């Protein structure tokens, strides 16, 4: 039970996000509306991109995106892919969701030349100029002739910090 007497998040279980704040029963849980608004407002990804997907929380603030819908809570060990880290001031997209949905983004995307993309993939931070918003940016680079979303970087104080998880880092 939370302070207000309502149910709390069960970290080991998949619970579907409520549609809106009015339907929220678990304190601090993100809503579907807020998730769609986040992608639309920060990255320009149209809400229609996620029309056929459901969103779930398992782990504190860890959201998952699933193409189908099943009964909640779901007694399963995986449901689609991790999509966002919430329950923190600035929500952070995952590398996997960036690669899967990032091609629909129209803003807060930073395109790296190949050598910088290699540094980023290896997990290294780098100084570079960016005159847009600070915060989490979708990082792209050119692959087979077109820009391709690669992962998430945190831009602050003239530096792009690689958020590539350890298990996904590579030295190419």
């Amino acid at each position, binding site marked *: 039970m939370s302070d207000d007497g309502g149910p709390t998040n069960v970290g080991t279980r998949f619970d579907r996000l409520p549609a809106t704040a009015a339907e929220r029963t678990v304190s601090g849980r993100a809503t579907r509306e807020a998730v769609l608004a986040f992608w639309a407002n920060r990255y320009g990804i149209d809400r229609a991109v996620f029309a*056929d*997907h459901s969103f779930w929380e398992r782990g504190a603030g860890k959201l998952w*995106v*699933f*193409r*189908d819908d*099943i*009964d909640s809570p*779901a*007694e*399963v*060990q*995986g*449901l*689609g*892919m*991790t999509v966002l880290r919430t329950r923190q001031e600035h929500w952070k997209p995952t590398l*996997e969701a960036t*690669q*899967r949905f990032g091609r629909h983004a129209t803003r807060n995307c930073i395109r790296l030349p190949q050598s910088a993309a290699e540094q980023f*993939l290896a997990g290294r931070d780098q100084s570079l100029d960016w005159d847009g918003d600070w915060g989490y940016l979708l990082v792209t680079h050119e*692959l*087979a*002739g*077109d820009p*391709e979303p*690669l992962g998430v970087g945190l831009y602050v104080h003239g530096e792009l910090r690689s958020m590539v998880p350890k*298990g*996904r880092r*590579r030295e*190419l």
Partner: protein
Amino acid sequence: MSMLDRYEPLVDDPDRFRAACRRPLPHAVRVNSIKSSVARAETALTDAGIAHERADWHPRLFRLPEDQPGANWPYVHGWLHGQEEVSVLPATVLSPEPGERVWDACAAPGSKTTQLAALMNDTGLVVGTDANVGRIAPLRSNAERLGVTNLAITHEDARNHSLRPFDGTPYDRALVDVPCSCEGTVRKNSDVLEEWSLDRIEGASGVQRGILRRAVEVTREGGTVVYSTCTFAPEENEAVLDFVLGKRSCRLVDFDIPLDHTPGVTEWQGDTFDPAVRRAKRIYPHQNDTGGFFCAKLEVTGS
């Protein structure tokens, strides 16, 4: 090579069979259509300086004669998945349609699971089950890298698979690519020769029967189940089919594959099997220069 001696009576050319089993297997990658076209993946391989040749029998398969699959840009983006060439066969034979409900009974590490998801354009539902908790994380990781969002993962013994999280609704199709003695992978892992034992084969066979039986139970009437192994032992192949044909309402159906193969065997070491097992396909390493494989297609007929 006592294990291979055992199968000489079954193969058309024992010398070529033995020689092929001793040759290493080239690496291969499957192009993941959720994230890339074949043309873009091929351009990316070329740009990365990775020698590649397209397999003539499957449009999304490239052989990499000189490289490992993992350390290049198209792999990092989930455009490619390292997968043994012949192992793309069972999902191809199952041929799920977009929007369907499909069960992968033995899913980890997810090569075939993610291939099913791609064939379905990442729509509908794939339920991927694995009994080994240590293999759930690799399954999830591979699915995420390949951009799969239509996959629900369950950790359970497939013999007791529960439909409860999924409304109790039966599946349209099921893939039963069971744990086996892996004799057919001898070209990439010679340990299978040292670890081989008849006890192992008989133990595997019992589990395989239970999993295939459950797959037929949870698939709708008219639905399709594909059974496959990467082993030669009839105990793990035709004997498993024979068992399930006698226990559940299903039949073996004919199917075509673009690889040389021989039909399933109806007799083995004094046992005889239902003549329908000839509809299964045995693939020996010398026939197509691949690993060894076994594949059968069943239709659920209802009681």
